């Protein structure tokens, strides 16, 4: 079992004719993902990475019975591509693109709220169910299948934590990179709900970072509704206020909201052990299992 992605996931790659889109379509196929089509306006009829390309997402979804898409479309056109995916309709849309204007994402998010589509990202590494399928750019070889769910705002930090888990023989049900932007389709709470409902996920690792209040909301959700144990990590303890640490969303505001301290306290107060280092997180997961 897993969340979001399984054997039945059939993927359209939006932007498959671009360098990134083509490379990662090939990588996804090599990993075993059912990539069934590409969608690029004006490029219908071509074949890329061994799959047919259609002019629209709807055509691709109908012709190839697809139910998910991965978006590699450049930022200026990505908002439009996400509307197209949400209208197709599909069950899951994973937006890899970094640098989508925030106001575009506010409108996309507004649209998503009217649908039942799961939107993950943007500015995220994607979703992987180890040994089954990956939608995105995550390096498949560090993951192994098992019973720990993982949700994270950051790509490479996910890899670091997963590597620690895998090396101890702790495999994963599904790992979800939710992305580092201020407005994202899947919040921590959304991801935790999915893991809580999954019978095979025995514990969850949640990697947050400074900025916003998503981690605090997640902490309250865990305290009130979750039976599955959660181990936490928060990046950015040493970040000074007012300085953006890479991710558009990773900033401690001048008035002191979004600090690591506030997030760590919220998690600990709701029974979530927060590791000081990625290795400590892996220790905590071992204890929880």
């Amino acid at each position, binding site marked *: 079992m897993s969340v979001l992605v399984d054997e039945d996931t059939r993927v359209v790659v939006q932007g498959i004719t671009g360098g990134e889109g083509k490379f990662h379509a090939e990588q996804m196929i090599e990993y075993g993902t059912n990539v069934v089509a590409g969608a690029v306006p004006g490029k219908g009829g071509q074949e890329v990475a061994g799959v047919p390309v259609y002019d629209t997402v709807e055509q691709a979804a109908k012709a190839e019975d697809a139910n998910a898409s991965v978006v590699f479309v450049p*930022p*200026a056109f990505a908002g439009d591509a996400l509307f197209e995916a949400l209208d197709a309709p599909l069950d899951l849309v994973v937006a890899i693109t*970094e*640098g*989508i*204007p*925030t*106001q*575009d*994402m*506010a*409108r996309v*998010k*507004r*649209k998503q709220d009217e649908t039942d589509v799961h939107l993950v990202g943007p500015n995220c*590494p994607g979703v992987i169910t180890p040994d089954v399928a990956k939608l995105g*750019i*995550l*390096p498949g070889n*560090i993951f192994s299948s098992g019973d720990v769910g993982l949700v*994270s*705002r*950051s*790509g*490479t*930090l*996910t*890899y*670091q934590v997963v*590597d620690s888990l895998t090396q101890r023989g702790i495999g994963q049900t599904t790992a979800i990179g939710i992305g*580092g932007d*201020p*407005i994202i389709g899947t919040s921590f709470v959304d991801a935790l709900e999915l893991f809580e409902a999954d019978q095979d996920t025995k514990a969850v690792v949640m*990697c947050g*970072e*400074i900025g*916003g*209040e998503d981690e605090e909301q997640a902490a309250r959700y865990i305290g009130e509704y979750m039976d599955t144990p959660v181990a936490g*990590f928060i*990046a*950015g*303890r*040493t*970040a*000074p206020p007012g*300085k*953006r*640490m*890479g*991710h*558009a*969303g*990773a900033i401690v*505001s*001048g*008035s002191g909201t979004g600090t690591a301290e506030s997030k760590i306290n919220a998690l600990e107060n709701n029974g979530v052990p927060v590791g*000081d*280092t*990625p*290795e400590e997180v892996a220790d905590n997961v071992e204890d929880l299992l």
Partner: protein
Amino acid sequence: MRLHEYQAKQVFADAGIPTPAAQLADTVDDAVAAAEEIGYPVAIKAQVHVGGRGKAGGIKLAENEAEAEEYAEDILGMDLKGYEVKRVLVEEAVDFVNELYVGVTMDRGEGEPVAMVSTKGGVDIEAVAEEDPEAIAREHVDPAFGMHPYQARKAVYDAGVDRELARDVSSILQTLYQIWDDKDGSDAEINPLMITSDDEVIAADAVLNTDDDALFRHPDLVEMEEEGEFEGSELEEKADEYGFDYVRLDGNVGIIGNGAGLVMTTLDLVDHFGGEPANFLDVGGGAKAQRIANALDMVFSDENVDSVVFNIFGGITRGDEVAKGINQALEQFDEIPKPVVVRLAGTNAAEGMEILNEDLVTVEETLEDAVQRSVAYAQEGSQ
């Protein structure tokens, strides 16, 4: 990007928001000439991106020519919290009886814009938000429809603005929202929005910050950005040229990594193991050798740095490219300026380890070991 006050005021004025008469000056003579033309009293305001300019001596009120000259001399060229003042705005001093606050920003928690109005203008609005949140009326806007006129009125009435002024203030709020929307704003603010004794409403300050990711569709904003010189330290300017996400900190352990979350974690680990981070530097995803070499050049340029830790977990970044870049950067030195500790994991890490010239760097297998080693080097180096 952040517009200067004079630029934001121009945008606001073009959209129909009343602003005081003003001229930009970069010499004392020009400032005095502007003051004479506008008529005394005038405010002389430093045009730098620094909060609390008034308290720091960057805004002064001149009653006559002698004062205008004195204050322009004081302010032009002064160091305001680390920024040199190169231009002042000479502006008609508005005789006000009341000060309001109006603003529009993105509420990231809700994923929606929010318009705000308060009768407690003229002071730090973040302090008001903290101490007296009820004093700020908030109205969320559905991004699919934009702000309805009733919402602007509602925010103004809810804030308790005098009813005689409600029409003017809500019209200004509506315009401010439109500017925020049109320019891909992140924050648009008027603080204070001044009320004169004959009930005129005037924007005495103007803030407009816009989304860097949306600059591609705003050539007018790009032009304004180029008009101002780069503000910041030499290191920040260098980072800007190289296109790095870089933040300088106070410590002596230089940090380079890929991915914001992992770089932040590396900073935190340096702190955890008793060291002090000198910087945050994210090379981003898929960095090639030249970019890696630039990152090392960047960190070596910081005189505070006593050691460097390179932490790469390759996803789309390849270990062999990283190794090439490190070799390329270090082989040009007869003597390595500061010890460099490297930890490579993920995509093509093994290939990278074969390429890496281990005479020039210290290699560690794990993140923890690499951080501890760099902290130890930094402590030796600073003695």
